[in-house]
């Protein structure tokens, strides 16, 4: 893979919002207190501390990006959790305090982050703080109990306690990350939490099981457990990284596919990109979950792809100005192109029905004949999918406003669309659009 030259560089010290600052401050306080405590008491079992510190640093070097701009360091966090959960190493009792676990974990993380900083990849401090807090929670609960007779003599008790602590740590990470995303992307907390858990589940399960395995294996294998265990964990991570990589490439290909209409002069430059950004923002506002948001993004990027089959571009590329019959044909042709790219789920369906009135075709015609009939509360089963309705609204808005960011013009466009919510546009989508557009105007001012 060539390096990503075209990706806009993240600032070295990105602007943070209050939630992130609070999180980082909390982690900082815990860390400072732990370092002070460890410094006064001295480091116990220093060979073990060094081994785990190296493993955590190694894991931090190999951290990976998961779909949806998430950062994860599975090997590092598995090592840190295992360190917090140790009972014996090679038959000898471990006397490590919770504070020491936190200190070693933090040192490992910072050392592991240095190579990333050296090549100009900024550290995502909030995500590191989240990981440190999760490890701290487990360490504070478990370390005081680790030496007790109940734990060392009852294998089953130790096992169930450790399992529940690992689950707690993973849950805590999901909650903290979801809270960050709520603030960053204006998603709803419940939606963000479910998405977070869904994305983290596979890797989280592997991390948790690995942490337990390392902690138990160290009893007989000693520190060799770390070396033996790193190999399979590394492979799991390589598979994950490649999966995330090809997923990114796939999105880039879809973007390229979308850009084709612009280069061919069928639509105004930037139209597909703007419609997709707007549609995703509206979808998030409506509480749509991440997998469907991704489909929405794909569909919005490719919503005009059917125009390629036209002999000559529509003047200005504004499909809203084309005859309804032609609009429908474009949508059908587009859906055909997308169906060729088989695995896109319901994307083709979303594109095919992007022009349909939200209450379904028959209902809409009746609606035009007798305006008095009260519209149903929600679209019937004949109505197009939510994604199509959002794209219809976002597309119409962009055709009216274009790349202009003028708040008055945007407000006028929203008003114009709102007039047509009896049958054409989904009122919910238009209201969400209006909120997104208002917010955008405020930021602009």
């Amino acid at each position, binding site marked *: 893979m060539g390096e990503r030259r075209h990706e806009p560089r993240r600032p070295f010290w990105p602007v943070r919002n209050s939630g992130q600052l609070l999180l980082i401050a909390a982690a900082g306080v815990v860390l400072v207190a732990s370092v002070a405590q460890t410094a006064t008491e001295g480091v116990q079992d220093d060979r073990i501390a060094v081994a785990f510190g190296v493993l955590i640093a190694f894991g931090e070097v190999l951290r990976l990006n998961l779909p949806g701009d998430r950062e994860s360091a599975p090997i590092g966090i598995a090592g840190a959790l295992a360190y917090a959960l140790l009972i014996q190493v090679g038959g000898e009792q471990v006397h490590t305090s919770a504070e020491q676990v936190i200190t070693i974990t933090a040192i490992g993380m910072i050392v592991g982050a240095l190579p990333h900083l050296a090549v100009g990849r900024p550290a995502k401090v909030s995500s590191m703080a989240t990981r440190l807090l999760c490890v701290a929670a487990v360490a504070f609960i478990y370390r005081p109990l680790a030496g007790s007779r109940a734990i060392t003599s009852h294998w089953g008790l130790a096992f169930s306690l450790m399992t529940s602590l690992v689950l707690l740590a993973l849950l805590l990470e999901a909650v903290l990350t979801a809270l960050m995303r709520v603030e960053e992307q204006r998603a709803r907390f419940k939606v963000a939490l479910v998405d977070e858990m869904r994305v983290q589940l596979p*890797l989280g399960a592997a991390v948790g*099981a690995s942490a337990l395995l390392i902690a138990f*294996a160290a009893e*007989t294998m000693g520190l060799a457990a770390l*070396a033996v265990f790193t*190999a399979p964990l590394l492979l799991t991570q390589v598979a994950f990284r490649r999966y995330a990589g090809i997923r990114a*490439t796939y999105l880039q290909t879809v973007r390229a596919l979308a850009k084709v209409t612009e280069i*061919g002069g069928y639509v105004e430059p930037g139209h597909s990109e703007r419609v997709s950004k707007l549609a995703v923002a509206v979808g998030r506002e409506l509480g749509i979950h991440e997998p469907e948001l991704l489909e929405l993004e794909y569909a919005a990027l490719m919503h005009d*792809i059917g125009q390629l089959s036209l002999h000559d571009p529509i003047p200005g590329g504004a499909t809203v100005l084309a005859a309804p019959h032609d609009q429908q044909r474009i949508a059908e042709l587009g859906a055909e192109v997308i169906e060729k790219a088989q*695995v896109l789920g319901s994307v083709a369906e979303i594109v095919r029905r992007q022009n349909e009135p939200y209450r379904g075709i028959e209902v809409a015609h009746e609606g035009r004949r007798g305006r008095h009939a009260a519209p149903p509360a929600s679209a019937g089963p004949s109505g197009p999918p939510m994604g199509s309705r959002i794209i219809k609204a976002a597309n119409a808005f962009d055709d009216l406003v274009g790349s202009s960011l003028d708040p008055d013009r945007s407000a006028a466009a929203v008003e114009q669309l709102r007039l047509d919510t009896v049958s054409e546009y989904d009122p919910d989508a238009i209201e969400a659009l209006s909120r997104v557009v208002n917010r955008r105007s405020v930021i602009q001012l």
Partner: protein
Amino acid sequence: MARLSWPARLYIGAIVVAAAVLLIRGPFGDLAWWREVAVLGVLLVVFESTATLLRPKELAWSPSPIATLAAVVLVGPVGAALVGACTAFGLRRGPSAVQRVFNSGMLALSAYLAGEAFTAAHGHVGMPMSGSFPGIIGPFAVAAVVHAVSNHGLLGGVLWLTNGREAPGRRTSPGMSVELVVSDLGYGAFGLLIAALWNVTGLFAPVLVLIPVAVARWAVAQLVEQQRAYQAAVGALCQAVETKDLYTRGHSDRVSRGSVMIAREIGMRGERVEAIRYAGMLHDVGKLGVPTRVLQKTGKLTEEEYAAIQLHPMRGLDIVREIGFLDEALAGIMHHHERIDGRGYPMGLAGDEIPEFARILAVADAFDSMTSTRSYRGARPVEEAVAELRKWSGTQFDPAFVDAFVSAIMREGWQRSEPGAHARDLPAVPSLDHDDPGSPLRVIARPRHTEPAEPKSDPWSSPSRP
């Protein structure tokens, strides 16, 4: 696997008989030994049932070496062979009876060899204790390597005997099997872990190990799925090009295949072969930036129209630039109309200045164009097209790649577009192919100061710089 050749039958038979002899000969252990064999056998069946299908349909990757390697440590060579033989009971639906029997024999044999290697390297068979570490790691690593090598060696043999010889294109690439060996070795470490945890957590060890294995398996499955999705997306991009220009139906695909043939012939690395495959698929994507009316125009082109056609490699670059591609593929797309003598477009590069990918694409591109039907001429026979390639090797094409392509065609043949389908489906609008070295594509108005047009008798004088 309905019809097996006799060497394949002989090979499978030999492996199965060898495994059976080992299993019957023993020696076997006591009751506790049998219990461990049974548990590990069940574990192997579980692993085997969750095998992931890899791209060539017959080949599946399963984490079963974990169970056999644990058996190597816990119950020794014969026990490991017994565990390996449990493969036949896998609940996977795919394999036929012959495949099941062969897989069992193969795994039993490689487990036995791994067990022998383990003891030969002074590994102690039985439950590892605190004192066994780290000394046991060395013998275990030896056993894992022997297991992986014998397993993949035996598997490679049967693949080669059953379908490798007839269809060389469908052979699993060497890069892929190296990757499989490495992943087997890595996951093999779980085997040692199961053995080490056996006396701490008992049966929980295999259960705990199953989780990361399942996750890894999930990731591999996702990877395969995403690769498929990616290919489909690239396919859709090609399809979009071909809706614009009906004459080039299947062209991208064939150019891709031709470029891969050349790349393999000159011994290119697997990763670069993949890149050139995509480069071939997408080489004409820039045509989307050329107005349809120019692409399908009959007769001579005006200067502006010709300029629009000459721009298509640049447009292609604009479209695919942001795909996380090898940079080489991008360079190939951009320069596939350059000529060795420097009279190509868009930059007029000459000789070695032209990127390697572009020189390869140029050969496959021109060849496919010549062997396909065009409105103004029929498809040329392969021999004639080869002669033309040779004729222009050194002026338009890089001689090394022409030679490589010709010898690849001589060996594997060339699957051209079906002329019948074209004649029926296509509109009677004659349009000119810009890729066709012999097409009468010519600019009407040339700038006054350039040299006079080339002699008309020369069919190759086409796309030169105005």
